[in-house]
């Protein structure tokens, strides 16, 4: 096996175990892993931005293809940095205004058409489309699709009432808003359930690698490093801490 692959495997296992060591308690290995992760992520992003943006999208077309129109966006980009110089900081605001105007102009109509209107359509259309009977489709088969639509309508209405604070929540409003709370709770529960699944998937992903890298092919990387980490913790807890306690007592 290539030595660089082996080195990568041992580094990956070591850093994974460093990060999981936080479950025992906050420690120097965890903090080391955390800082390495941050450093590598930022370093990777910087390299990618320089290679993809500055070299591929600006430098090469400008120098090799003589695409001089690119000077305009390049200058606009550089002008954003004028905010660090108080006297000419106003230049950056002009560019920001351009970015905000462009973004809002593109985004707002599409968000209204594709987001708000589509959401309303999704809620209202299924009920409007009922032709053949509430519980039966065009083929005469039993269906619960319309029940779903009804639940969605009740849910949306009651949640909106719950978040409507201009009227005191009494009588009918109170009852409807209470139904709204239940819908909100169910939504949070569903979301949390999926979150648990997502977090467990991450753990499973790391465990997959740890199990794979514990094989003889990788010189038992996971087992060796896990034992070493546990030994370090034991030495710290038993020997060093005990020594510190003895010193304090003296």
């Amino acid at each position, binding site marked *: 096996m290539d030595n660089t692959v082996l080195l990568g495997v041992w580094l990956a296992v070591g850093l994974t175990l460093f990060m999981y060591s936080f*479950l*025992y308690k906050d420690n120097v290995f965890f903090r080391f892993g955390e800082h390495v992760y941050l450093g590598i*992520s930022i370093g*990777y*992003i910087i390299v*990618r*931005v320089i290679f*993809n*943006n500055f070299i*591929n*999208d600006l430098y090469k*077309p400008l120098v090799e293809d003589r695409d001089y129109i690119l000077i305009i966006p390049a200058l606009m980009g550089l002008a954003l940095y004028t905010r660090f110089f108080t006297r000419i900081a106003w230049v950056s605001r002009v560019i920001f205004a351009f970015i905000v105007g462009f973004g809002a102009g*593109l*985004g707002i109509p*599409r*968000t209204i*058409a*594709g*987001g708000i209107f*589509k*959401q309303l*359509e*999704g809620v209202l259309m299924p009920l409007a489309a009922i032709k053949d009977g509430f519980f039966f489709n065009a083929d005469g088969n039993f269906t619960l699709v319309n029940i779903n639509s009804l639940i*969605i309508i009740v849910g949306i209405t009651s949640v909106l009432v719950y978040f409507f604070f201009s009227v005191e929540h009494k009588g009918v409003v109170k009852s409807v808003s209470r139904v709204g709370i239940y819908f909100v709770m169910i*939504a949070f529960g*569903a*979301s949390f*359930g*999926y*979150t*648990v*699944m*997502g*977090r*467990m*998937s*991450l*753990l*499973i*992903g*790391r*465990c*997959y690698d740890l*199990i794979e890298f514990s094989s003889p092919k990788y010189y038992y990387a996971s087992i060796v490093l896990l034992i070493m980490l546990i030994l370090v913790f034991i030495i710290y807890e038993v020997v060093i801490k005990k020594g510190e306690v003895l010193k304090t007592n003296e």
Partner: protein
Amino acid sequence: MSLSWQKIINLDRRIIYVLISLAVIIPLMKPLFIKVNITPEVQAVYDTIESLPPGSAVFLALDFDPAAKPELYPMAEALLRHAFRKDLKVIGMTFWVTGAGLGEKVFSDIAKECGKEYGKDYLYLGWKVGDYALVIGMGEEGISKTFPKDHYGNSTGDMAILQNVATLKDISYLIELAAGDTIGTWYYFGRLKYNFKMGGGCTGVIAAGWYNLLKIDWINGFLGGLRGAAEYETLINKKGTATGGMDAQSVTHMLIITLIVLSNIIFFVTRRNK
């Protein structure tokens, strides 16, 4: 009696961590082969790819980073395998700079496995700054004009795959694998204007919100979290890491449910005793 209840309530959280670790590791080492049922939203994505004639273009947006790899990477593998088996042309890119390397790996690995040729059968554009401007650019100006160079720095203009797939209008199906909210960008600036079919896959954390997108027809189906990936692996009949992980997932879920029920029972018992 109440003392033992109290002991359980004050249980060291690290014992729960150990239990969870065992619940993950043991099923991974000794699989239980729990059956994976196919949900309609995953079936819809499969059926759409299955219905495309050979040579159709599929766009795979890999908008995730290594943090979402355990969930979304198996989806990318399964979808690519399916698309290549069907002789579809696949173009990929990512909005996430930290995901550029993962995209490259999944494309090159699966293409090699399926014997596909770069530039003819598939193309990986990689990452580029621009967000929605890229989608508009690919729709209006063309894919090769928006991405004159691919991930490796090759010129895209003369690639065979782009001769029949000049813009996003020529895409038959776009699949968005998302760990964030990039699906809005693809919908608002892509599907809404160019009217291609869209499906997707997402991490478990955001999956609950995606059912709404099904309802309002943003997407025709999606793969939610590791389970979605496992379902797709079952559909294409190629078991991978997602299917293997589902045993561990099921056991940990059972453990968590047991702990929730147990802690609630203890809570009510101790409250009544007080």
